[in-house]
């Protein structure tokens, strides 16, 4: 625990949060008071928060574990790393806590982000398929196309492939192939492309919109003028 406490530093915006603390619920205000104190009081609060974040991280990796096919000590290591990094994030961003939720809810959010990042890194180190593979035969299965009805979707698949080649930028194409064909987790692609979740999502969002427009223009799917799902 000592190493965790030593890693975290006070956030520069803490003064602002202290001013806002008067509007917080009593438990959240107490967390802020203790975490912005000094000496033993702060160390005790950090230890208590770390314990809480470890418990939340362990629950979260257990929840995700069966789908990830990660078990045992590796899963527990992942939880401890996520909790440690979440503690650093929380203490570094104390000044950004506005009291719009309980303090612990806000802190747990960082555990979820860190678990996602650790899972992304795991699949980057141990990919199920090469990250630069491009196997279009995977696509029908990925979208649940019924093989018995291939006559109905063969043309659509061809049109989609042409649209991917013709209307997407190189970056959009690479993201589409990785996520949709190869089913690379988005958080893994974030690491592979040295990017961030928002940028990758936006790239894929734009690719989806362009592909839908291309398929609709050729009569394969309905035009979606409302844009709302």
């Amino acid at each position, binding site marked *: 625990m000592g190493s965790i406490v030593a890693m975290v530093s006070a956030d520069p915006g803490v003064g602002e949060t202290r001013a806002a603390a008067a509007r917080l619920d009593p438990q959240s205000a107490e967390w802020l008071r203790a975490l912005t104190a000094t000496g033993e009081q702060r160390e005790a609060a950090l230890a208590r928060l770390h314990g809480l974040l470890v418990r939340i991280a362990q629950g979260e990796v257990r929840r995700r574990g069966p789908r990830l096919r990660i078990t045992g000590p590796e899963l527990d290591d992942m939880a401890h790393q996520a909790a440690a990094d979440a503690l650093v994030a929380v203490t570094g961003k104390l000044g950004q806590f506005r009291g*719009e939720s309980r303090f612990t809810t806000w802190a*747990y959010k960082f555990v979820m982000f860190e678990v996602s990042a650790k899972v992304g890194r795991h699949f980057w180190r141990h990919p199920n398929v090469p990250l630069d593979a491009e196997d279009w035969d995977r696509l029908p299965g990925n979208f649940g196309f019924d093989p018995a009805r291939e006559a109905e*979707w063969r043309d659509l698949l061809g049109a989609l492939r042409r649209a991917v080649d013709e209307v997407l930028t190189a970056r959009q194409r690479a993201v589409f192939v990785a996520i949709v064909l190869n089913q690379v987790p988005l958080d893994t692609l974030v690491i592979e492309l040295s990017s961030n*979740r928002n940028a990758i999502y936006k790239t894929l969002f734009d690719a989806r919109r362009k592909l839908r427009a291309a398929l609709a223009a050729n009569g394969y799917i309905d035009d979606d003028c409302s844009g709302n799902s």
Partner: protein
Amino acid sequence: MNVWSALDDFLRTDPRDVGCAQAMQILHIYAELTVAGAPAEQRYPGLAAHLRACGPCGEDFEGLLVALRDEAS
């Protein structure tokens, strides 16, 4: 339902979708509202649209809900 409805759904984008950055900023508020039974989706339609479309943010949201509900029980 046509034979490619899953692809059709995937390609459908919602212009209200706020993206991951904004979603990650307010996920804790949205999760507390949801657990409290408040109309979170009406208050934050752009975030609701995003969570329907973004697997990673949806996963983080589900995990946060589970953590909050476990704590409350």
